[in-house]
């Protein structure tokens, strides 16, 4: 099976936030929750770069390790998903996550945390593929339709790549060798303990 990953080519990202919008629209993400965001580093200084970040679907995912109720699972495509039926909204995955991916609707007592929501790689959840229940709780399941996550598909500069890691590493390597520079595959070392050597 494929090993699905995201790769943000920070030398191409122009901080247009189309990925954020695409994600919110495709998955009916509620107000106040951002499954994906664009962070600009060195803003206004030399070496400014923007990186689009969401759940990286880590190898040996920290969120899954620390979850007190064991509500996470990894699909055959190496996508890290979770069950909102089982989640108790304790917030531990947010403490563990290197990328700030888990989001909590403010519905719990003391306005703190409802059930966690995060990027599903447009792969739905534990409910039946493409069912109404799945759509309501997790958003779309494009993977089941044979499509890639919409954020990457809509990226105007193709900075954000999604797909099997061999394929997207190849694309990235080719780009870097052609243009002669690259700031690296952001988060890969943290998420997968390996990076792309170019």
């Amino acid at each position: 099976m494929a090993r699905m990953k995201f790769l943000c080519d920070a030398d191409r990202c122009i901080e247009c936030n189309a990925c954020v919008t695409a994600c919110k629209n495709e998955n009916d993400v509620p107000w106040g929750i951002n499954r994906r965001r664009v962070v600009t580093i060195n803003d206004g200084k030399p070496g400014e770069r923007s990186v689009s970040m969401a759940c990286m679907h880590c190898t040996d995912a920290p969120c899954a390790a620390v979850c007190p109720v064991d509500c996470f699972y990894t699909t055959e495509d190496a996508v890290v998903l979770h069950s909102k039926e089982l989640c108790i909204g304790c917030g531990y995955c947010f403490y563990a996550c290197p990328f700030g991916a888990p989001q909590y609707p403010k519905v719990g007592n003391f306005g703190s945390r409802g059930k966690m929501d995060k990027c599903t790689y447009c792969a739905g959840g534990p409910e039946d593929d493409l069912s109404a229940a799945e759509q309501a709780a997790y958003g779309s399941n494009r993977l089941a339709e044979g499509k890639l996550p919409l954020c990457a598909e809509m990226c105007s500069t193709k900075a954000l790549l999604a797909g099997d890691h061999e394929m997207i590493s190849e694309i990235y390597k080719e780009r870097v060798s052609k243009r002669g520079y690259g700031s690296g595959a952001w988060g890969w070392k943290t998420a997968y303990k390996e990076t792309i050597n170019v």
Partner: protein
Amino acid sequence: MVAFQRSWGLAAALAIALVIVVSGDALAQSGQPTSVNPTASSVKEGQLLDALKPPGSGPSAVTGRVSIPDTKSSVLIQPAGRDWRQIRQETLPFYGAIAILGMLAALVIFYLIRGRIAIDGGPSGRTILRFASADRFAHWLTASTFILLALSGLNLTFGRKLLLPLIGPEAFTALSQAGKFVHNYGSFAFALGVVLMILLWLKDNIPSGADLAWFSKGGGLIGSDHPPAGRFNGGQKVIFWVVVIGGVALSITGYSLMFPFVFTDIAGLQEANMLHGLIAVGMVAVILAHIYIGSVGMEGAFDAMGKGEVDLNWAKQHHALWVEKTEMKGKGAATPAE
């Protein structure tokens, strides 16, 4: 002379080299760059993580600017989560299990060796008021909520390993969800209980010279000698301070977790959780010993918090100084049990 000439030659060669380097630099600076080298300014994740390391050995994080109101999302990568994971998944369960199981084992061994500590000369049948209803209210409010908070908290630490395989994911989630409500709401009653205890008992828990004598005689736990003590003996004072300091620390860390990002940031929350868990298991171990000595471990002790009245012989045996003082004041005078 030869050496002198040689060093002169060396100096001249160096000077020429310097001139070449400097003029080369000047040329490069004056001439328009033929091509842009974007790598010169490109940021690499690894370098950033190193560069952004806060002073000291603290964890690093890559932080930038976001265009959404959620400011905490501006932390792009925070590898400190890995350390927190290690502590929560390994350190806390390890020390927690040692503290709790170790204390249980110690108590069982102590019971087997020492048995139940009896009242010298048996109960007298006459009782003396030890804890008024306000004292008992504060005690049981704190005690009952402590047990609920400890069980619901330890469920987060150990439940996934111990309970989840037994009762299945749906039941375990229902239980843990209920536990979270109990923990969140129960915390207010617990904190109130700790405040009441401070108000009621602080003045009698100031360490004194009698405590040293009490500790040097092993508190009467070892041997049959009962060192005299005031209203609270050295051991009880230790329990008092553990509950007060531990309770306040658990409240501070607990409320920062309950209202995430109100008082502190992600690193602060990780620390709060670590401290909360470690202090909690330590306190559970101490309280287990307290529960033991207040119930099965010692004849007549439970009455103090149960009925509020204790047998006079028990009081003289364990709190001689307090009995003297109380009787001198003439209040709380012993009343016949018949």
